[in-house]
């Protein structure tokens, strides 16, 4: 098992390295870049200006030497300097890490918890009226883009009924408190988790319904095992693998979703930083975010693989 983990870890490092290097080369090969955006008003724009800005930023150098510099910065842990902020990329990202972990973590919990609960119920009662309602509602939830759901939630809960704040992470006119923080979290988490929960629920439902139709369930029932035990010991177990796969897949999906929801709710996290950096052409920050996401995504798939083996010992380590 240790050998397997190590081999997977090596694959992980190679994948992340390939991903970042490809992004880096693509970014730096394309002409026309950050200079234009940093100079602001186009009135002052001259080719000499642009060349000067490019020289200061270091993007007039050949791609290879820039890449070497970036790897040097990576090894030193600061990931280079942001074009926009006068600060190291590691620090810029670090400041915004916790809000995103909060948002994505709560969403993941809600997605997995809620999705599994609803899916188990619907799957165990496949074909019933409640199942049909839940499934239809899930497809509707999958059809609604998260940013529009966010705007709709703001309208209902912040504009029409003034229950919750419409954006931001804390009230400006009050001392910081846990209650205030939670109030700010509710709408972004809801906007992000609804569609994921629906997708998860539908998937769990299908897996459970399929497992309940299998031969081993019929045998278990025939030998007189009580219904609840049949469900827990047999149906749940064989549905566990697809459920784990889905949970692993949701990590990248939710990470991508934070980009949108953080922008809608002005949530000061990595996702908002990413949208801002795209507009600003802040390449070093974007590189840092790609690297971070790569690590998160690959770590999630590694954890999923490990969980497979715990859930089903028949899966060989190779």
């Amino acid at each position: 098992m240790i050998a397997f983990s190590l081999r997977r870890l090596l694959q992980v490092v190679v994948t992340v390295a390939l991903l970042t290097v490809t992004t880096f080369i693509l970014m730096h090969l394309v002409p026309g870049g950050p200079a234009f955006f940093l100079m602001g008003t186009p009135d002052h724009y001259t080719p000499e200006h642009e060349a000067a800005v490019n020289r200061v930023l270091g993007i007039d150098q050949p791609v290879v030497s820039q890449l070497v510099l970036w790897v040097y910065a990576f090894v030193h842990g600061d990931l280079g300097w942001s074009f926009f902020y006068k600060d190291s990329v590691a620090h810029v990202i670090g400041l915004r890490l916790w809000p995103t972990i909060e948002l994505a973590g709560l969403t993941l919990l809600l997605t997995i918890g809620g999705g599994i609960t609803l899916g188990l119920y619907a799957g165990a009662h496949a074909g019933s009226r409640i199942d049909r309602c839940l499934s239809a509602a899930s497809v509707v939830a999958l059809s609604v883009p998260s940013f529009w759901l966010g705007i709709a939630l703001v309208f209902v809960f912040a504009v029409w009924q003034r229950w919750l704040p419409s954006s931001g992470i804390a009230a400006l006119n009050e001392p910081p408190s846990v209650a205030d923080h939670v109030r700010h979290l509710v709408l972004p988490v809801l906007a992000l988790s609804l569609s994921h929960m629906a997708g998860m629920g539908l998937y769990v439902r299908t897996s459970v319904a399929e497992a309940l139709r299998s031969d081993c369930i019929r045998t278990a029932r025939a030998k007189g095992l009580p219904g609840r035990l049949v469900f827990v010991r047999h149906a749940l177990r064989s549905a566990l693998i697809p459920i784990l796969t889905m949970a692993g897949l949701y990590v990248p999906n939710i990470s991508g979703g934070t980009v949108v929801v953080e922008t809608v709710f002005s949530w000061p996290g990595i996702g908002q930083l990413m949208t801002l950096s795209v507009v600003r052409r802040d390449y070093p920050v974007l590189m840092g975010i790609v690297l971070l996401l790569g690590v998160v995504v690959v770590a999630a798939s590694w954890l999923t693989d490990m969980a497979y083996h715990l859930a089903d010992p028949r899966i060989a380590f190779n």
Partner: protein
Amino acid sequence: MASAFAPGVTASSRPVTLPLTPRRLRGMAPAWIAAAFIVLAVGLGPWALRLDPTSIDLSAINQLPSAYHLLGTDDTGRDLLARLLAGGQVSLGVASAATVLATIWGAIYGAAAGLGQPWLDALLMRIVDALLAFPNIVAVLIFAAIFPAGIRQLILLLALTGWMQIARLVRGVTRDVANMPFLEAARSAGAVRTRLILRHVLPNISGVIGVAATLELTKAILAEATVSFLGAGIHPPMPSWGNMLTNAQDYVFTAPWLALAPGVAISATVFVVFRMQEWLHLRGAAL
């Protein structure tokens, strides 16, 4: 993104066509009618309405629906209905074109993996796994930051980030079909590779390609809307369902109806395509 959004689709679903009984057709009627309505409205609407979706009228900003502006006006006084219809042409056009490209490439790639040697299959699928792991929206945004904006670029971006799921589904069924006795029979009867693929493999995987393509269409519509909403896809003054919502949040306190029409249009369209996908899937895999 959204690799998970596949209600009921599995790689092993075998394409077996069910006869179209009247009951099945009836169950599908609302979705077909809705789809026809959307296509007609978006296709003929701008021509029938005769209002310029880009003409600015600063004396009539953020107006409520009226007899002249049936859905009201936006923050620069442009007619919302005209923008909704023209934006639909842009959004659905971009999404459809991206879906076609992604489907063609994904099907070729998936079939190559499914029919190829085991080492080729392993290599091709590892690449797909690696690409699938990365969040779609992030990839589109990064590319949008690197390359100049435009409709053609956006189509290419959505296709480039959307073909992997199709390749995976097609590879799964191709593998199944490749192991079928009838394929071996055809091979032993002396059928050449082209004939094997065109006459024996393709008809058996076309059902899954259809299901995968409709699923990709839902993702492409949502992705276009999201990217344009974030300001990196279709840029104003050209309307798209996504960028119509970019400013809507700023006006949610004063003119909340601005957000209503584009959001409903996106959600309803995606829902209808989901229903069609579900139906195609049931038709193909119910046996």
